[in-house]
C-alpha cells in the first residue's frame, strides 16, 4: 500500500517536472527549440532519418564504449557518459520542440506559456498509452524531435 501511495505522489510530480522542463527549455533556449520545431514541420522525413541515424548509431557506440571500459571507469566510460548526456540533452530539446509544435496546433490562439504547457502535458500523457504510446508515439516523436534539433543546430544562417 505504501508503494501505491508513493507512486500516486510521484506520478504527478514526474509529470509536472516534464511539463516544467519542456516549458523552461522553450523559455531559455527559444532559438534551439524553435529550430527543432521548424525543421520537424518543414522536413519531417529528413528529421526522422537524422534522428534515427543518431539515436541508433550513438547507442551502439555508447554500448561498445561501455563494454570496452568494463565496470571500472576510465576514458571509455567517460566518453560513453558524455555521449549519453549529449543524446539526452538533444532528446530534451527535440521533445521540447515537439511539445511546442503540439501546443501551437492544439491551442493556436493561446499564449506561448499555455501552448507549451498543454503541448507538453499532451505529449507526456499520450506517450504513456500502453504499447501504442510506449513503442510507437514516443519513439516517433523523440526521433523526429532529435533530428529536428540537429538540423536546426547545424543549419546555415539565412543570408
Amino acid at each position, binding site marked *: 500500500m505504501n*508503494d*501505491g501511495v*508513493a*507512486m*500516486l505522489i*510521484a*506520478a504527478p510530480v514526474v509529470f509536472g517536472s516534464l511539463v516544467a522542463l519542456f516549458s523552461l527549455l522553450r523559455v*531559455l*533556449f527559444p*532559438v*534551439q527549440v524553435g529550430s527543432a520545431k521548424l*525543421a520537424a514541420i*518543414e*522536413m519531417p522525413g*529528413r528529421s526522422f*532519418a*537524422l534522428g534515427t*541515424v*543518431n539515436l541508433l*548509431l*550513438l547507442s*551502439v*557506440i555508447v*554500448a*561498445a*564504449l*561501455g*563494454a*570496452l571500459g568494463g*565496470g*571500472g*571507469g*576510465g576514458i571509455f*566510460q*567517460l566518453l560513453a*557518459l*558524455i555521449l549519453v*548526456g*549529449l543524446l539526452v*540533452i538533444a532528446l530534451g530539446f527535440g521533445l521540447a520542440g515537439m511539445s511546442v509544435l503540439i501546443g501551437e496546433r492544439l491551442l493556436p490562439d493561446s499564449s506561448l506559456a499555455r501552448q507549451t504547457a498543454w503541448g507538453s502535458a499532451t505529449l507526456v500523457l499520450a506517450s504513456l498509452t*500502453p*504499447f501504442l504510446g*510506449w513503442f510507437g508515439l514516443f519513439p516517433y516523436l523523440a526521433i523526429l524531435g532529435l*533530428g529536428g534539433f*540537429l*538540423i536546426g*543546430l*547545424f*543549419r*546555415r*544562417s*539565412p*543570408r
Partner: protein
Amino acid sequence: MTDHLDDSLLHAYLDGALAPDERVGLEEHLNSCPACTEDLARARRLFLAIGGMSEESLGRDLTPAVLQALSRLPRWVPSLAIGELLGALGIGAALILGLGTSEIVDGLSASSERIATQLEVASRQLTSGWAEALERSRSFWSLSEIRLPDLGSAGIWATIAIAALILWFVGNGLVLGQVRRKVWR
C-alpha cells in the same frame, strides 16, 4: 449585446465591416442610446483626423543600416548557452566517474527496480486494464533481460565502435548535406 457597444464594434461599423443584420441591430441600439451615439461620433472624428493626415517619408532608406546591425548581433549568445551545457555535462561526467561508477550504477539499478515495482503496484490499484497491459508488456519485452552480448575481446567492441562511428559520420553527412542543399538558402 451588452448595455453599450464596444469600440471594436463601432470601428467595424465605420469600416463597413459588419454583416447586414449586425449593422441593423447596431443602428437600432444607436437610435436609443445617446452614450453610444456620442462614442460613434468621437470614433468618426478620430477616423477623419487619421484619414486627413499626410504620409511622411523617412528621408533616407534605413534598410542597409538595419541589415548591418543585424549582422553584428552577438552570434555567440546561443552557442555560449549550449557551450555551458556541454561544459556542465563534462564536469558532471568526470564527477560521476570520480565518485565511483559502480556504486552509482548499483544505486541506479536498485532505484529502477524499486520504481518498476511501485509502478506495477500503483497501476494495479489505479486501473485493472492498465495493470493488465503492464503485465502483458513484461511478458512481451522485459528491459531487465537485455544484456550486451559477450563478445570476448575488447578488439571486437573497438571494431564495432569504430564502424558505428564511421556510419554515424557518413549518415549525418548525407542527411545534413541534403538538408543544406534543400532549404536553408
